[in-house]
């Protein structure tokens, strides 16, 4: 049996979900026997591969770049897992939604700037007006809430998904867990 191709993606989130993923510790070795990590902030691949079996996406869609990425990921992944509250609800990144991106940028780069106050506009991707969960852009197959989902949750869920065993997510985790 050929190994599954696993990708992990980091959109607008704090990387906590990835940290928690790594907290699987020795169980990662177990996982490595079943799947290859083909794309991830943790590995040195620049382009998202053409064919991925499982994509774990951390973070909300907050910029034009995020939006492009999530559409590409969806197009090239068989199973898309929204990993953690940011990807599922918008969570902390979405706290700017009621007041809009201008207010946030102003506070960060103008009001609180010590020198040369200016809003960065070159190279950095443009922010979307509203930060949204990824399922508002693409179809999501599995939702794994939590901030972050625990290592145990990752282990149980991934094992079930890889082996085809039944998976009861609400029994494992919840929003804010």
């Amino acid at each position: 049996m050929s190994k599954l191709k696993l990708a992990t993606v980091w959109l607008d989130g704090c990387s906590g979900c990835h940290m928690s993923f790594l907290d699987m510790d020795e169980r990662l070795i177990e996982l490595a026997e079943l799947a290859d990590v083909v794309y991830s902030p943790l590995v040195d691949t620049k382009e998202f591969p053409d064919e991925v079996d499982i994509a774990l996406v951390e973070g909300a869609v907050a910029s034009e770049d995020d939006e492009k990425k999530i559409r590409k990921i969806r197009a090239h992944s068989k199973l898309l897992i929204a990993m953690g509250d940011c990807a599922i609800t918008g969570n902390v990144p979405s706290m700017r939604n009621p007041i809009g991106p201008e207010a946030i940028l102003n506070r960060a780069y103008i009001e609180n700037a010590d020198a040369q106050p200016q809003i960065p506009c070159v190279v950095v991707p443009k922010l979307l007006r509203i930060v949204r969960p990824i399922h508002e852009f693409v179809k999501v197959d599995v939702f794994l809430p939590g901030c972050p989902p625990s290592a145990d949750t990752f282990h149980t869920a991934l094992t079930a998904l890889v082996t085809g065993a039944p998976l009861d997510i609400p029994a494992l985790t919840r929003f804010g867990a």
Partner: protein
Amino acid sequence: MTIEELEQIAKSVCQENEKYDFEVNVCMDLACSSQGAQQLKDALVKAAETSGKNVHIRRTGCMGPCSSGPLVRVDPEEALYHHVNADHAEAIVNSLGGAPVPDLQCDLNEHFDKQVRVVLENAGYIDPEKIDEYIARDGYKALLTALTEMTPNGVVHRITESGLRGRGGGGYPTGLKWGTVAKASGDVKYVVCNGDEGDPGAFMDRSVMEGDPHRVIEGMALAAYAVGASKGFIYVRAEYPTAVGRLTAGLRDARRRGLLGNNICNTPFNFDIEIRLGAGAFVCGEETALLASIEGKRGTPRPRPPYPAVSGLFGKPTLINNVETYANIAPIVRNGGKWFANMGSERSKGTKVFALTGKIANTGLVEVPMGIKLREIIEVIGGGVPGGHTFKAVQTGGPSGGCIPAEMLDVGVSYDALVRLGSIMGSGGMIVMDDTSCMVNVARFFIEFCMTESCGKCIPCRAGTAQMFTLLTRFCNGSGTMDDLELLESLCSTVKEASLCGLGQTAPNPVLSTLKYFRNEYIEHIVHKRCPAGVCNIQAPVTDQKEVLA
């Protein structure tokens, strides 16, 4: 007051009328007034004085075909003049006794022939502020007869026999409701008249309250006698100042005549009515919300049971009916239940007043026997869609109702038939739409209304209508997806089944009925990003926010 005294008043009114050679009736309902009916009446009075003719110029309530206003009817010839203004006064007065003024006469025979007037029988014939004119047309006869010759149970029985169903929307059997309140235990009971005509596009109740206020008062008094109440409240929209004025005057006159107050007609029956003003909340048409509002509270509905018949206003057994229901009572008591039951269809008896508006030639008030085909109302009575446009749908039942398409127009109007079509009878608004109306936009309009009028107490209605509005807005601006449509249908189901009161439970109706009959318009908006009626402003190209990749 006795029957004899009543007859004496009627006789003196007739004698008074006989002093005149001619009668010129000027419709002074809102539509005609807004086109100079007052100036017209003043000019007629002046012209009559100048001419030296013996003319009785009377202001009346709504005559019906508002789009032809201002209206004038000359009696005894029954010549109806349309689009009359003050300049025509002289010609009209000059014509009295001779041939009618040809240019002004309108041909609305077809419009009137299909109608049967029970509720509106006095509108257009009496001065609404003259109680004696009402009495002269058999007014208060039913009340006095009931008080002196019938038992309260007898009155309930007569209403039950008539088959009358509530005209406010739900169509609950009136006799059954009265019987329940009559049987409820308690010394203090109330009768309440729901005059909070909230459906936008409906003005039947306003016209009745303004054109024939004593009909409502008499109906309420009969109800009070039947159920054993001694206090009544009329809850009227503050947006209807004329109705408030007419009812206030009507109550004052009825008290003066001894038709309200203590020991009415020398019987032990005591009854009086207070007016309570609404303050701009559609949800107060819902009976428990209305009662909360009369109690001076926020108009939020509460779960039923207990029904108001058992625990209503101030916790006492309360009978609530709407204006048109009460307006039907006196004729039923007078003429008998069977007389009423002979009109209408199998399970919907009597007549129904509709406010016919929108894209239709003859807008105004019509009263038709139940069971009449929608097509007859729209094409014959209403005169069809004007301006070379084609009929698309008729919306009945207000924001809680639905849009009925052309292929369903041969259905007879009844409570049950309209529900089967995905709409409701409602209070009687009938808004005609032609090919220039976008049904998605129409659904959005109604949901916006329900969203703004939701009281906010229960979650499905409060947040559900807001979500439905968001999704419908997406369709109208071209950013909606087929996933959104699925979500909308799912929301409709929860809002309909899980909401606390009628407002929420029926709020999805305009969406569901347009989805049922005009689904292709939704698809056009979503898939092809175009509005077939050209109403929605879809800016192409719109980036799909929620594109779904297979």
